């Protein structure tokens, strides 16, 4: 899949549109077996355009990540799919349904984890899950869910006394109560310590075996890389790239990273025959992209010798998703 340029690449856009057009043509109710279809979605808040012509489709049983910085339009998109917000333009289908028109049916088939809150502060995990279990015809056993998310020790502690990570895990368990076909997780691990995050990751991965489709938003690169079958990178409400983490990071180029005194001549580095481009990511940290890493190393060391520059910790590798993001959007992924 082509990933080039910092504007939404025409190739990506065209592919996504073609897929969604097909989906809509093939039937109102269950378009083409796709769990979620988004076509030309637009949402404005006053003057500000939060979502700007977004298109993508999610396959059944897929774990799909929306990755982007704060304000990229991730939460707005997910909340339109959940039925909380109305789109200003474009179309969405969720499990073949229109979230606005068929909300009542949709709510029996989805599970929702909001970005924060959503739970009574004076209620315990077991009480809250038990409450929700009465809302669905077929529901999970609250006790098993408590165990699944590792809250056994605090099952009878009031929500407001739980740690931030425990609160998030309860919200995740709550999203699973109704045995959903499709799960919406809005920044599921924000506020968790590394251990809780790892537990949550393995939990989300295990949902795959239950055949649950997952749409998650995140601004953790590692999260998208580990969990998602496909990642949609979003910036300023637009689709920047859409591919599997492997495809995104194993593009045809490699990288040579090295440490050296700050302020080296980037023009000279870019002029090396095998260099595609050169950047100083932080003072003294350099990255050169190349298609021929071995040749570039030879050129680089020769140049350093001539320029009297001492190169340290040279590393050759693929781009990380983080670097892909930086290259595609031109800015860092802020938390």
């Amino acid at each position, binding site marked *: 899949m082509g990933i080039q340029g910092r504007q939404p690449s025409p190739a990506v856009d065209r592919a996504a549109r073609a897929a969604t057009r097909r989906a809509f043509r093939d039937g109102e109710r269950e378009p083409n077996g796709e769990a979620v279809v988004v076509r030309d979605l637009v949402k404005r808040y006053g003057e500000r355009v939060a979502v700007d012509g977004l298109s993508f489709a999610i396959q059944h049983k897929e774990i799909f990540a929306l990755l982007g910085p704060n304000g990229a339009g991730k939460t707005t998109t997910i909340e339109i799919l*959940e*039925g*909380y917000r109305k789109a200003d333009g474009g179309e969405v289908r969720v499990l073949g349904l229109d979230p606005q028109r068929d909300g*009542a049916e949709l*709510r*029996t088939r*989805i599970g*929702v984890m*909001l970005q*924060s*809150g*959503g*739970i*009574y*502060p*004076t*209620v315990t995990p077991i*009480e809250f899950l*038990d*409450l*929700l279990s*009465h*809302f*669905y015809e077929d529901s999970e056993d609250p006790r098993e869910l408590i165990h699944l998310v590792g809250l056994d020790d605090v099952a009878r502690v009031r929500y407001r006394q739980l740690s931030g990570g425990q609160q998030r895990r309860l919200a995740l368990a*709550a999203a699973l109560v*109704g045995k959903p076909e499709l799960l919406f997780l809005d920044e599921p691990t924000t506020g968790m310590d590394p251990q809780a995050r790892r537990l949550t990751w393995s939990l989300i991965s295990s949902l795959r075996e239950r055949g649950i489709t997952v749409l998650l938003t995140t601004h953790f690169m590692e999260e998208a890389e580990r969990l998602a079958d496909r990642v949609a990178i979003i910036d300023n409400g637009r689709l920047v790239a859409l591919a599997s983490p492997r495809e995104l990071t194993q593009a045809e180029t490699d990288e040579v990273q090295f440490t050296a005194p700050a302020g080296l001549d980037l023009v000279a580095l870019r002029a090396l025959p095998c260099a595609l481009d050169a950047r100083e990511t932080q003072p003294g940290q350099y990255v050169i992209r190349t298609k021929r890493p071995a040749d570039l190393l030879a050129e680089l060391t020769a140049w350093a010798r001539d320029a009297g520059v001492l190169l340290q910790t040279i590393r050759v590798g693929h781009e990380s998703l983080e670097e892909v993001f930086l290259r595609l959007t031109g800015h860092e992924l802020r938390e």
Partner: protein
Amino acid sequence: MEALLAQARMELVLTLRRAEGVLITLVVPAVLLVFFASLGIAPPGYARPVDFLLPGMLALAVMSTGLVSLGIRTAYERSYGVLKRLGSTPLGRGRLLGAKVISVVAVVAAEIALLLGIAVVGYGWRPGGSLLWALLALASGTAAFSSIGLLLAGTLRAETTLAAANALYLLLLLLGGIVWPVERLPGPLAIVGLLLPSNALAEGLRLSLGQQPGVPLAQILALALWFVAALMVASRTFRWE
């Protein structure tokens, strides 16, 4: 049905877990009843203090449940994102509202029982007049104050709702015919008092429970107007998140 009952039970549990809420809904009307009835101060026209006080305290109980307790609780549920979260479950807004109605009615019934018990046992009060009209007045009062509470909860921030509901409670308690007849308030305050929904409810109860019972049509109509007006505004302005 199962979902509605589970949610109603949760609403009741939440009501009881707010200690200050329990104080203002259950304890304050009972304490005021005992205090003023024991002082033996009755406004002219009432043979015994309890004849005047009991209807006022019943009205106060309805007001503190519908306006203060329900309003504040719902406002915080909104700010905690609970209303939003429940909105994505099959419970739906209709049943969520229904559960709140059930919990309010249950709490009001408990308060009525408590206050009647105190009045009967402590002060020899016996029901006169028409229980049917009294029940109608209580029902329309509960509807009116609950919709005012929800109106506050759905439009103001939680902290503002807390302050506004408590301020209204105090205002209605003093000027709204609860502990003192509005016609005995000084000039302009009497007019204000007459228009307040608490006065309509308290007077409606006094009329229907009095020794020479009257039909509190005007009061019930006034409460119905408050109900419809608050509900219409609330349904337009209520924000779920």
